[in-house]
């Protein structure tokens, strides 16, 4: 049986030490308290800082527990925190693309819409926040299947109900689409849930790169996809850029 890994033990000791006191600690204090050489302690604390478990006060250069550590015990992102962080960028995406914007999370084998921005064309629309949509037939759902495997069921366990003539109804076809989504960085829907309504979605990543939600644009299939059935490149660019900005806002701490 392999022995325990010393550097992980030492990292745990650093975290315990920082958590044991209300004040930030300097590198010398940390090294002395743990009986470690200064360079070793520095390597550990720097790595912990890079993953967000430790923060360094810019003025005093002392260390304290990081905000990523607090997220650990929370059981995932609060949906309404997600919406609040995403709102400005979601509006901006709707403004720049002229399309409706959806934000969805994985919830009990489906997608739950936690935010919805109308298509900004003045047409009558109804707010769809709270709505449940199928994972296999929407861009949001396929994005979550592709990028959040822990939060979603495996493709073979899904009920691949044919919502339209274009819905993916075999596991093999769905797996191929998910692989493509992983390669490109976004997932597509060419009228697979509602006839004529297309979508594209990119993942939102919180600390550690973990995908916590999907951001999507929704509109007439012909507005999103060109004649060859490819997502218009400028749309993909806008979508991915907005997802990146929101992800940065999620990582930025409380």
């Amino acid at each position, binding site marked *: 049986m392999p022995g325990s890994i010393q550097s992980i033990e030492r990292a745990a000791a650093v975290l315990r030490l920082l958590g044991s006191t209300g004040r930030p600690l300097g590198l010398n204090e940390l090294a002395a308290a743990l009986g470690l050489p200064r360079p070793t302690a520095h390597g550990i604390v720097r790595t912990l800082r890079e993953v967000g478990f430790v923060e360094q006060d810019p003025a005093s250069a002392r260390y304290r527990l990081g905000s990523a550590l607090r997220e650990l015990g929370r059981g995932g992102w609060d949906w309404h925190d997600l919406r609040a962080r995403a709102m400005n960028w979601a509006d901006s995406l709707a*403004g720049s693309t002229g399309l409706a914007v959806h934000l969805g999370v994985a919830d009990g084998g489906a997608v739950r819409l936690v935010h919805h*921005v109308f298509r900004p064309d003045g047409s009558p629309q*109804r707010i769809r926040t*709270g709505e449940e949509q199928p994972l296999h037939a929407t861009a949001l759902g396929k994005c979550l299947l592709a990028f959040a495997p822990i939060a979603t069921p495996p493709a073979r366990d899904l009920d691949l109900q044919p919502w339209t003539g274009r819905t993916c109804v075999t596991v093999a076809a769905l797996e191929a689409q998910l692989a493509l989504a992983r390669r490109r960085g976004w997932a597509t829907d060419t009228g697979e849930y509602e006839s004529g309504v297309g979508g594209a979605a990119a993942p939102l990543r919180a600390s550690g790169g973990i995908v916590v939600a999907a951001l999507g644009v929704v509109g007439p299939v012909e507005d999103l996809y060109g004649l060859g059935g490819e997502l218009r490149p400028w749309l993909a660019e806008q979508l991915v850029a907005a997802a990146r900005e929101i992800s940065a806002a999620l990582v930025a701490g409380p």
Partner: protein
Amino acid sequence: MSERVVAAIDQGTTSTRCLLFNRAGRMLAVAQREHRQHYPRPGLVEHDAAEIWRNVTRVVPAALKSAGLTPDDIVALGIANQRETTVIWNRHTGAPLARAITWQDTRTDGIVARLVEDGHAPLIKEICGLSPATYFAGPRLRWLLDHVPGAREGAEAGDVLFGTMESWLIWRLTGRHVTDVTNASRTMLMDVRTLEWSDELLAILRVPRRMLPEIRPNAEVYGTCSTVLPGVPVAGALGDQQAALVGQVCFSPGEVKCTYGTGAFLLMNTGTRLAESTHGLIPTVGYLFDDKPVYALEGAIAVTGSLVQWFRDSLGMIGTAAQIETLASSVPDNGGCYIVPAFSGLYSPRWHPEARGVMVGLTSFINRGHLARAVLEATGWQTREVVDAMNADSGVPVTRLKVDGGMTANHLLMQFVADVLDVPVERPLGSEAVSLGAAYAAGLAVGYWPDLEVLRSNWHRAAAWEPAMDDELRRREHENWGRAVNRSYGWVQSPAEE
């Protein structure tokens, strides 16, 4: 070179922000810094005007940096500000003589009570349109003149200047001492018809005229920045709520907007007519862009978002403001519990300065979820009371409500507002109406936007909530809310006690 943009400073109650907008009215960048809230005693809330100025010098470059722009890319700067917050400073050193007294501060209750006792209320209302209240800036200025060593002598000698926050910032940016009509209309010192300082009101409040800024329209070049954005014209200023009226493009009589921030403020455009209010609303200047002012009726609710903050920070019930929706969604209804957040008395339309907060209907059944609901519902019902007053005063019923501000992220609350008002509630794309309004004023002044029609076409609906509450339930809940409010009355026995 990329498209030039307009910068807006939103000097708010809790933070100072700089936002950049393009011609389509789309926000390109935002930077923000919070400032300290000083609470020397219950009822007193102060800000350090020097700290706020320092924050301006930091957020403007930060916003430029995040958009990759330089001061050369900025065509004009507009300012929107927390209204009624009062500061006096030394014109030679630029140093404030005391901390700014904020709009939430109730220390002037004694001054206001004496104005009423001495029979000045009818004349004050006749000239400035406002019934004397601790809410307005004039009594705060009087308090500063009476209590701050050297203030009165300095003001009479011309060494000490008065301003609301836009005045202070424009003076620091350009060296010119001006205010705009909307901020001036909240001082209780301006004649609301001539839009000039009133000698009669200055005499009643014993304010030396020399210390007052010049009153100017909302969209004109006040001066050129000598610092922060060197060479850029400061070309627009509005009180934050009037700025939101402009940002929400409520340019036609009867159009209404509500901004949900620390407090909530409904403004209805009443056109070129100064509407009287017999139902507890405030007639105010909406905006002045050319020669004729457009007036507005305002309902001011002191505590909405700040109740959520209190729930988060003082009670520790939630970790973030957004999480109140999660907690409130954990229960189907309020369980019979109501919270009336009369933390600094009740504002529009009831105006009960002696009221204080109450929580009623408590039973062992009530849990945190019910309290969270009651917190949100308090905002809904207070909105309803103001809309009822507007309907009664204007005779034209409100048929839809445009909303903006941070609380519009809360869909449960927005649905509740639609439910209790029984009219659709609409949020525009980009809920930064306050900053956008300041940018619009500055952009109009320098010709970046040609006219109001172009601004109107920039408004896009981002969400709408349709009323879906059963009439009988609405009637019953409204009645319960009313009974709860009655229980908040008369708590502070004598205004002078506090």
